[in-house]
């Protein structure tokens, strides 16, 4: 039954490709571009609605589909205060109560509106210096992440106030635009915050397509790096190396806003531990250990090994939405502008996953994530001034752009960048600085029509 289904799917794919070849204007896309429709290679999915980021790989064996489904359930589990028959172990201090409450619809978080509580944005904190592995130096009494909520009776570490100041700019054609500069203030700390605390606000990033990114060969990522800018193009790109807990050594960082996380398992385990206060075999100690909020419940892992693996597997096997209108004339012109403006130097369109015989679903796929997985100097305006392993206070990982056009329908907003300060895609571009200064300036001098085409291209991703 299942084999038949796959056979039909293959026939359909062939049919699709034939039909595209037969009806697209011959010079609209060059030969290598056709697969650009399929951003996630053979794990591209075709829901361009609210479920666009929530669709499993189409090519999963039945057994893997079951694991994905179990992980899906776990991703949605709301944790509660222990002891409880179901999902105990929340907190005692935490940022949120389930994976999905930050990664709503497996998508992108945003900063709170005035009067709202912090929900899908959190604050990493550290003091100058490094920890034993060269990572951020935790704040005594607070750790490496601020937990702004607590279960009943546990005092949150602090609350966060966000203020914005608008600053006006103009495009070369005279059209004005405005950027909002955030400032973050920690209020009502439960104990004195030491001087010199560095804050790094981070919104929850989308979680689809990550298994494909994890499967990109390290050598391919390193080949894109040019940390000393030897080709003298003003763009460096450097790998971040971070402490890999499971392997007990430094390995290439791939995930998170500063590429300071080496694997999806560690990313998931860290989120359970820091964001929800859920202990697990990777991070067995409560985030509040040593603090007065600590409830002494280190006796057993609050999420089982199998569920942790299932959740990591779930996000590894969420497919990537197909492009929309990729052959539209305006989109194609926008794409050319994207290349001409050298945006594609860092937002590298095309990568290939390595061969993995144990996981054929993600093996040897041509994918179009629009990232180089490297960190870049993004200039002082975007800087958090908080180093994270090798990524300095001005460096951020190139964010993947695939699926970005669906943010509006999946998450109902257009807030981009690490702390959601940009309110449109265009604002996100205009925040770029540092190595991207020339690209930003290129966009600043575009005509309104060309700016629209560039955005149209991004919306089609």
């Amino acid at each position: 039954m299942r084999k038949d289904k796959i056979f039909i799917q293959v026939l359909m794919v062939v049919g699709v490709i034939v039909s595209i070849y037969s009806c697209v204007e011959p010079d609209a896309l060059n030969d290598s571009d056709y697969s650009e429709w399929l951003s996630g290679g053979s794990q591209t999915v075709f829901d361009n609605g609210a479920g666009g980021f929530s669709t499993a790989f189409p090519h999963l064996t039945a057994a893997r589909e079951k694991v994905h489904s179990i992980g899906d359930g776990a991703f949605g589990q709301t944790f509660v205060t222990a002891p409880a028959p179901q999902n105990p172990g929340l907190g005692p201090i935490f940022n949120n109560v389930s994976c999905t409450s930050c990664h709503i619809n497996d998508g992108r978080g945003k900063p709170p509106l005035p009067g709202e509580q912090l929900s899908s944005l959190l604050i990493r904190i550290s003091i100058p210096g490094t920890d034993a592995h060269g990572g951020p130096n935790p704040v005594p009494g607070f750790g490496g992440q601020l937990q702004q909520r607590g279960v009943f009776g546990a005092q949150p570490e602090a609350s966060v106030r966000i203020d914005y100041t608008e600053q006006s700019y103009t495009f070369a054609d005279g059209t004005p635009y405005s950027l909002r500069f955030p400032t973050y203030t920690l209020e009502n700390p439960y104990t004195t915050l030491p001087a010199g605390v560095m804050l790094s606000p981070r919104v929850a990033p989308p979680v689809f397509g990550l298994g494909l990114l994890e499967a990109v060969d390290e050598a391919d990522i390193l080949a894109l790096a040019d940390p000393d800018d030897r080709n003298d193009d003003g763009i460096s790109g450097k790998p971040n190396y971070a402490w890999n807990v499971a392997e007990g050594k430094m390995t290439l960082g791939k995930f998170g806003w500063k590429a300071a996380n080496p694997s999806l398992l560690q990313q998931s385990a860290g989120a359970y531990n820091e964001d929800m206060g859920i202990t697990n075999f990777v991070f067995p100690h409560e985030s509040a250990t040593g603090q007065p909020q600590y409830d002494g419940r280190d006796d057993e892992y609050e999420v089982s090994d199998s569920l942790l693996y299932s959740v990591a597997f779930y996000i590894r096997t969420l497919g990537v939405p197909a492009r929309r209108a990729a052959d539209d004339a305006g989109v194609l012109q926008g794409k050319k502008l994207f290349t001409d403006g050298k945006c594609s130097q860092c937002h590298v369109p095309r990568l290939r996953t390595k061969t993995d015989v144990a996981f054929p679903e993600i093996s040897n796929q041509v994918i179009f994530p629009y990232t180089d997985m490297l960190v870049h100097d993004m200039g002082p305006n975007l800087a958090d001034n908080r180093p994270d392993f090798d990524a300095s206070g001005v460096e951020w990982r190139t964010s993947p752009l695939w699926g970005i056009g669906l943010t509006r329908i999946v998450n109902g907003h257009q807030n981009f960048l690490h702390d959601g300060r940009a309110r449109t895609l265009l604002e996100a571009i205009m925040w770029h600085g540092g190595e991207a200064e020339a690209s930003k300036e290129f966009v600043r001098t575009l005509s309104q029509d060309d700016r629209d085409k560039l955005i149209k291209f991004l919306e089609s991703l």
Partner: protein
Amino acid sequence: MKKSYLQYLLAGAALVSLSHCSDNDNASPVNEELNTQVLLDFSANLPQAVYSDLSTKTSTLYDQVVALGTNGATDDELAATRTTWKQARQAWEQSEAFLFGPVSTKDIDPHIDTWPVNFNDLNAQLNSGAEFTADYINNLDDALKGFHPIEYLIFGEDGNKKAADLSERDMEYLTALALNLKTLTADANNSWKPSVSGNYHTIFTTAGTGNATYPTQLAAYQELVNAMAGICDEVANGKLDEPFTAQDPSLEESPFAQNSIIDFTNNIKGVQDVYLGKYSADGKGLEDIVRQYNLQLDSDIKLKIDNAINALGKITDPFGKAITTQAMQIETAMSSINDLKDILETELLPFVQQHTK
């Protein structure tokens, strides 16, 4: 968020339509006027009507809860709040067949319908001196507010709570929760009202007219069908399957009111509503488009909806008990609902890809 397979079957139509073949000789007929009307009727008869109904019922619930507190509650009055709670639940569960737009993106869904309840903190709240202001409740975790904590307070752990068992503190918390539910469902109602700025009615029904969220009508139709299939998946493979496979009644939602099977049935009735374009009023629905081109598909979908609803009706024990006593009925219900999901994904979705643009 549960989704699954067969996407490649859908790939064909999707990509063909995306590639804008202007000279496609095989183009299927598209009745744009009807397609526009179906979107308009959907918005009016489903989200607008259902959220309005939900909002009215939670408003009634709030009034009844307030009266309970001021009159000195009688068992009859408590029974009336339970009935209203179930009526509000009916509207909400039917609305889960179109869980997209602001109710999803603005988190209204988890704010009003999170399971499990955080009993430790709920009891601690009741035993505390906290003043349950609207802001205070609004800032509570989702597991401490919404339908299920209200259910716990008015039904009691065994479903037999008496009015005399309602403490003063119970009443304070219950009143504040009922107000919070009323407020949030009013937000849901406003989010689709054509008269409210930024409403989703306009976003959804102007699909295909330079609309950034729904660039094509096809995108709006895909949203509808995916939402219908999505709730089928959730009911069959989440709500029914998880407690059943684990043989764990604690995984059951709505255990205090013993309302789970009714909830699941209303989920499927929601799918039926969307297909017919009908709730309290009847308008043009997907049914009308399907009937124009494929009567067989129309009768197949209707048969599978009926089968799913009937199969759920065969589970006669409370769900927490039925997971051990009525395994066959539960298995039949899961497979019937999965059959419905399959026809929506493998036949209705390709159909709308053919007959909308």
